[in-house]
C-alpha cells in the first residue's frame, strides 16, 4: 500500500471494509519482493512513492474502527538493518502483527532474535510456511510464536503450478494442531477456496487477483470478484 496512489487505494479500502472478512493484510512496499509474482512486484514499485508510517497509521485506524485485525506483510530484507526502529513503527501504527515471508529462507539464523523482538513489543510474528518448509522448522517456529499461521499455497504470489491441496493441508494441519491456518499465494478461484476449506483450512488470503480491478479503477468488478471468492469461503 498505497497502490496505485493514496486516493485510489483508500476508495477500494472503503469498498473492502464494507464486506465480510477478519484480517486485513497490508503490504509494506519494498525494493526486493522476491517471493511475489510479477503482479504484486509491480505494485511494490509504485506504492513506494506514496508510503509513509504516518499514512499506514491512518489506514490501520480506519480498519480498526471497522472491527478488523491488521497485519503487515513485510520482507526482512527491507528492515533487517533497522529492526528496532521498524518494529516500533509497526507497533505504533496499531498493527496486530506482521508476516515476514523471507525470514526462514533467507535469514534463518535470525528467527529466534526476530520473534523475541516481536514478543517484546506485544505484536505477533505470523509464521510463514510453504511446502518446502521442513517439518522440524515448522515445529520450532510454532514454539517461537503464537497467533495464526500463514501457509503459501504456491511458490510465489499470483502464479499457479499444480498442487495436491488435500495432501498439503493434511500435512500442515498434522504439524500445527489447532492453530489457525490461513492459505495464500496464488488463490483466485472459489473452487480452490472450497477445496482448501473442505480439507481443513481456516481461512484464505487474496491479493493478486484483485489488483487488475484496482488498476482499471473498476469498483464493481472489484466487489464482485471479492464476492465470487467469498462464495468459496462462506458457501
Amino acid at each position, binding site marked *: 500500500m498505497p497502490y496505485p496512489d493514496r486516493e485510489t487505494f483508500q476508495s477500494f479500502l472503503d469498498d473492502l471494509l464494507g464486506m465480510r472478512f477478519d484480517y486485513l493484510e497490508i503490504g509494506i512496499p519494498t525494493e526486493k519482493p522476491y517471493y511475489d509474482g510479477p503482479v504484486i512486484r509491480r505494485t511494490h514499485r509504485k506504492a513506494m512513492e506514496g508510503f509513509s508510517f504516518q499514512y499506514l497509521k491512518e489506514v490501520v485506524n480506519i480498519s480498526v474502527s471497522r472491527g478488523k485485525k491488521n497485519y503487515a506483510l513485510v520482507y526482512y530484507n527491507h528492515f533487517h538493518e533497522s529492526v528496532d526502529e521498524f518494529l516500533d513503527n509497526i507497533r505504533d501504527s496499531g498493527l496486530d502483527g506482521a508476516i515476514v515471508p523471507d525470514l526462514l529462507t533467507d535469514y534463518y539464523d535470525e528467527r529466534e532474535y526476530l520473534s523475541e523482538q516481536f514478543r517484546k513489543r506485544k505484536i505477533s510474528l505470523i509464521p510463514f510456511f510453504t511446502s518446502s518448509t*521442513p*517439518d522440524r522448522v515448522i515445529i520450532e517456529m510454532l514454539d517461537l510464536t503464537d497467533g495464526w499461521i500463514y501457509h503459501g499455497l504456491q511458490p510465489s504470489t499470483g502464479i499457479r503450478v499444480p498442487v495436491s491441496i488435500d495432501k498439503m493441508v493434511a*500435512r500442515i494441519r498434522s504439524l500445527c494442531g489447532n492453530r489457525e491456518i490461513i492459505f495464500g499465494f496464488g488463490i483466485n478461484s472459489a473452487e480452490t477456496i472450497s477445496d482448501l476449506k473442505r480439507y481443513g483450512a481456516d481461512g484464505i488470503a487474496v491479493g493478486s487477483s484483485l489488483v487488475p480491478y484496482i488498476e482499471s479503477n473498476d469498483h464493481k468488478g472489484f466487489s464482485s470478484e471479492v464476492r465470487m471468492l467469498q462464495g468459496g469461503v462462506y458457501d
Partner: protein
Amino acid sequence: MYSEQNVDIIPEKWYNIVPDLPEPLPPPRDHDPENSSIDLLNRILPKEVLRQEFTSSRYEQIPQEVIEQYMQIGRPTPLIRAKNLEKFLKFNGKIFFKYEGATVTGSHKINTALPQAYYAANEGVQEVVTETGAGQWGTATALAATLNGIKSTVFMVKVSYEQKPLRKKIMNLYGAQVYASPSNMTDFGKKILAKDPDHPGTLGIAISEAVQYSLDHDMRYLLGSVENCVITHQTVIGQETVKQLETIGEKADTLIGCVGGGSNFSGFTFPFIKTDAEMIATAASEVPKFSRGKYAYDMIDTAGILPELKMFSLGADFVPKSIYAGGLRYHGAAPALSLLIRKGRIKTDEVGESQSLEAFKIFSKTQGIVPAPESSHAIATAINYCRNPANQGKTVVINVSGHGLLDLSFVRD
C-alpha cells in the same frame, strides 16, 4: 541382473527430502523482475513433474507402469562387493558399489527420464526435448520417450557431439532427433554462433536451447538433473541400496558419489540422511564448484529462461575445460545438496582428470567394470579414502553412476 527374483527391492515410493532438511530449501526466484519464470514452467514441464517439484509430501507413489518400466531397463541394479579392489588397496574394511551402469542405457539417468516421459505421454504430449552433455541423459530421454510412445529431440553439447559419435547413433536408434549445440535451431543458439562459430558449447547453453525449442514448438522439456523432482526420482538408487545392505546385514559408514548437477549423488545418499553415514560428494577439479563456487542464487541455464536457484555455482556462463567427464561440467549443484553441504552434513572432494583416469584404470582392472568417467571421480575419492589408515575397517559404498564403454576414446593405448 535382469532376474525377476529381486524386483521387490524396487521401492514403491520415491523419497522427497525437503520436509526432512535442517533448514528451508530456498525457493526458486525469477531472474527477470517483469516476468514469472516459475509460471513459465507450466508451459515447459509436464504438470505432474511440476507438481512434484514443489510438493510438501515426503513420499510420492511410483506409478505401477513406471515400476514395470524400471524392471524392463534393469532395476533393481546390483550392489556388488568390490573384493578385488579391497585386496588391491590392502583395505581391511569393505567396499561395495551400487552399479547404475547396469541399466540398459548405461547410467542412472533413466531413473528420472522414465517417469518424466511417462507423465508427459499421459498428459497427451507428443514430443519431448532435452539437452545432453556426455550423452547419457540424451540416451536416457530417447529411450524413455520411445518406451512411452512419444518422440524426442536432443540438443547435445558440441564437443561431446564430436567426441562421442556412438552416443548420437544410439539416440538415433531410439528414434531421437539430435542437434549439436549451439545450433541454428533456436534464436539463442544462433546468437552464440554469430559471435563464435566454433563455440564448443556448454550444458548451460544446451539447456537454454532445449527450453527455448520446447516453448517455440509447444513440446515439453525433460529435466536431467539439479531440480528437486529429479532427485526425488533418483532416490530409487539409495532406497534399493538401503534394502540391499539390510538383506546382507551390512551398515554403510561412508557413501561416496560424483556430482555434475547432483542427481545421482543425492538420489543415492538422501535415503540415508537419517543415519550417521558419512557422505562425500566429488566434483571435478576442473569444475571446482565446491571450493571456488559461490553459494548464492544463480541461473540454471545460460539464457536465464528458467528460475534462479540458490546453489553452489561457478556462474551460468562458466565455460569449463573440455574434460572427458562431460557430465561433470555443469556450473552448479542441486539446491538441497548445496544446502546440506553448506550445513556440513555432506562433505566434498574435487578430483582432477589424471587422478580420475588412474581410478578408472584401477577399477577396470580389478573389478572388470569399465566405469563412466564421471563415476571414476567418485572411485578416485574412494580409493584415497580407503588408503587413509584412519579409515581402515570401514564399510564404504560407492555409487558407480554409469559405465564408460562408450567413452573409451579418451584412453590412450
